[in-house]
């Protein structure tokens, strides 16, 4: 803490919130709200005269509200920066602090929140975690039974800088205690609250037990647990030490706590699973090892930063294994528990790792971005012609498209991640994606279906997941039908309906529409757009009377090689089950319908000219295949 304050290149802005983040990698424009402290930082010397003079007392959040602070305060004596604050919600405007401050004149009641704009190259998000409030778990009586406390309250109660100066006592009668229970997994590993494991609480329970055992050797301490998890270096040894020290580990999650209302003694009944018996014990105090949960304002911050959240509410990383520090937005990195519960060593390590990731950018004069981005054909965009549209802006998971009615949509190139969702969604074919243009993808489709298309299964796959799944099927030698013809785009969101129509127009036997599972999408919500489109197509094809075996949607991760092979084999079997003449008749019947849907295809820039060329390739292939 003090190091950070001493380091001249670090500007510590405490009591400040991030209001707005705009821009893109290397070029963020960040608006910060410096909240009014009513004490001038340049004058306050941290002498505490104002706090001494202040007559108002309110609970101190830093002490888990177990101790009071003044309205003129610092949260703790070692605060960094050492500048007092006046809590205007509590202040009664008696101005005694002004008097006490005297000639220093540091207190300034006219201060207001100040907005500051900063130009930033890279952002490290290290917003940490919040603590689960066990009050809703009425079975544990937190809030009703005075001697049931949370882990963070225990932290302050046994801390020499805490409200009791480190002498642990029961809240009900301020007496010392002899029997303590610690209950693990309070609100974590619990589908009613947070289904995930909070990662560090097992170790944390052991630490508190050992610490208290050192303070009061005769104390009887039990830890109730479901599983004890000690995965990192030195942790299992730490667990050994705790058992050696006589701490009792009881495997069994207590269903509830009861209290004697007169003595405030507590009783815990649980199954001791290793004994296979229900046991009941009496305790003087119970510590609930509460779950680590996302910060209460994490939803808000996630929209300020435009980074997605995983199902549990934590920030979602670019890739859980290969890029755990990166957010899906270039130039924004995660450190510590905001990305998922982490203990101190892991948080420190990720802090350094995120700094290293960020410094790659910050040490460069310029930063390179893949050019496979979306571009708008300004002459085709209907918005430029005065029509209301904005579909592309809504389709973009990154807010990389600016839409204003009357002006053709504009792609903010540096924000674009190249998923192609806008291309897939644009109803007027006014956007294309470089390196995956309609002409380029259509050229592939036509060649793949040049010969005997009715026998082929054309598989559209996303680059990150289902293409990887197909790779894994090969690597694992899961064999599948060789009639499959794979085609790669970056995301299922890019799989434009036109491309599917074209496949059927050419007479494809079957089409597979595949991408990642919704939670794995590389492009935040790309898969969701893809899935919606696939469902729409499915319905439409059913209405047209297409055999359902000819269109299939599957979400296949890069780890599901077996699934890829199985899906293709199932599709092949279903295709084989359709009699040839029936299939051919259906293809012929649907061809005009597909042609109708594709009537504007040739108007897409480049497509008509390209297709003339592709037809040379196609006829060459057909000539080769059918010897005259």
């Amino acid at each position: 803490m003090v190091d950070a304050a001493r380091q001249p290149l670090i500007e510590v802005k405490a009591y400040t919130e991030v209001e707005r983040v705009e821009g893109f990698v290397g070029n963020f424009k960040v608006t910060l709200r410096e909240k009014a402290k009513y004490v001038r930082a340049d004058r306050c010397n941290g002498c505490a005269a104002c706090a001494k003079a202040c007559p108002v007392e309110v609970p101190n959040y830093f002490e888990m509200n177990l101790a009071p602070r003044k309205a003129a305060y610092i949260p703790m004596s070692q605060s960094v920066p050492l500048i007092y604050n006046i809590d205007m919600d509590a202040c009664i405007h008696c101005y005694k602090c002004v008097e006490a401050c005297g000639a220093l004149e540091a207190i300034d009641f006219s201060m207001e929140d100040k907005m500051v704009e900063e130009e930033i190259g890279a952002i490290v998000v290290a917003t940490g975690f919040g603590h689960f409030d066990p009050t809703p778990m009425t079975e544990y009586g937190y809030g009703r039974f005075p001697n049931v406390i949370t882990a963070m309250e225990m932290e302050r109660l046994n801390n020499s800088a805490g409200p009791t100066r480190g002498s642990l006592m029961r809240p009900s009668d301020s007496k010392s205690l002899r029997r303590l229970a610690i209950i693990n997994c309070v609100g974590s590993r619990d589908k009613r609250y947070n289904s995930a494991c909070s990662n560090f609480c097992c170790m944390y329970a052991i630490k508190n037990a050992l610490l208290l055992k050192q303070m009061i050797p005769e104390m009887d301490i039990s830890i109730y647990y479901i599983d004890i998890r000690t995965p990192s270096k030195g942790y299992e040894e730490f667990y050994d030490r705790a058992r050696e020290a006589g701490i009792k580990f009881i495997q069994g999650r207590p269903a509830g706590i009861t209290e004697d209302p007169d003595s405030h003694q507590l009783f815990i009944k649980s199954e001791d699973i290793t004994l296979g018996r229900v046991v009941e014990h009496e305790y003087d105090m119970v510590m609930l090892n509460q779950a680590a949960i996302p910060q209460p304002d994490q939803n808000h911050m996630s929209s300020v930063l435009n980074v997605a959240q995983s199902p549990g509410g934590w920030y979602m990383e670019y890739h859980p294994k290969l890029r755990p520090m990166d957010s899906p937005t270039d130039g924004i990195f995660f450190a510590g528990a905001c990305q998922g519960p982490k203990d101190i060593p892991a948080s420190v390590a990720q802090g350094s790792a995120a700094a290293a990731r960020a410094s790659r950018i910050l040490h460069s004069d310029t930063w390179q971005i893949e050019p496979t981005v979306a571009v708008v054909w300004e002459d085709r965009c209907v918005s430029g012609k005065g029509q209301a549209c904005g579909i592309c802006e809504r389709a973009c998971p990154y807010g990389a498209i600016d839409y204003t009615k009357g002006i053709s949509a504009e792609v903010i190139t540096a924000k674009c991640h190249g998923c192609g969702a806008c291309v897939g969604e644009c109803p007027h074919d006014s956007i294309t994606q470089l390196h995956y243009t309609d002409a380029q993808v259509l050229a592939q489709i036509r060649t793949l279906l040049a010969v005997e298309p009715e026998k082929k299964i054309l598989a559209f796959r996303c680059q990150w997941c289902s293409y990887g799944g197909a790779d894994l099927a090969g690597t694992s030698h899961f064999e599948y039908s060789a009639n499959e013809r794979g085609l790669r785009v970056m995301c299922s969101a890019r799989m434009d309906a036109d491309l599917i129509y074209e496949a059927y127009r050419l007479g494809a036997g079957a089409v597979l529409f595949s991408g990642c599972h919704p939670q794995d999408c590389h492009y935040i919500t790309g898969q969701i757009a893809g899935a919606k489109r696939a469902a729409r197509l499915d319905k439409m094809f059913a209405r047209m009377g297409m055999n359902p075996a000819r269109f299939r949607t599957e979400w296949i991760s890069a780890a599901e090689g077996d699934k890829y092979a199985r899906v293709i084999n199932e599709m092949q079997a279903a295709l084989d089950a359709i009699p040839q003449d029936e299939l051919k008749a259906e293809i012929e019947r649907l061809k005009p319908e597909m042609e109708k849907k594709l009537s504007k295809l040739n108007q897409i820039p480049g497509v008509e000219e390209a297709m003339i060329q592709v037809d040379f390739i196609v006829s060459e292939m057909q000539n080769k295949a059918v010897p005259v």
Partner: protein
Amino acid sequence: MSLPVNSKLAEQVKAIPGGEMLMMCFSCGTCTSKCMIQEKLEPAYNPRRLIREAVFNLEDMAFNDRTTWLCSACDLCYPACPQKIHISGVINAVKQLAVARGRQNPYQTAKVDESTCVACELCVEICPYEAISLIGKKVPFRGMISMASVDPGKCMACGICNAACRSTSIRLEQDFNDNLVVENLWGWLESEAV
């Protein structure tokens, strides 16, 4: 309902409505410590262990386990379970499978007196476990008549039918029969009077 009999116990339990979440159990023991039957009646009663027996396909063990037959589906454990497993649903699934395999409920169930039942359906309507239905049965000298019938796989011996029946044709015969209940009541009243 047809039960899948050719697969392993865990698969069968999962296939029965109420048993779907079986495999989610991580054996924390909350259900056991919450259970009233365990506390008041049967110290060896253990829903967590029964779930484990089902997970590991220990069919004989599960069918012989008293837990299978004693659960009253009071569902105290259900809201306490951190994995949201409907434990009484799982136990009920095991019980149905046991009955389907010809196991007898070792505990008492309600019995119908075939000679007096008039098939009024009061018990059918009131049974909280849907254990009673009307069946047609041939009775000597009376021919084919309809009457109440208790499914021993579903009956929990709560006695509500016994109380509801106007002709005392459906009864619990051992513990908690009419005479015992009346005797108990008198006992309590007398002690109150003293």
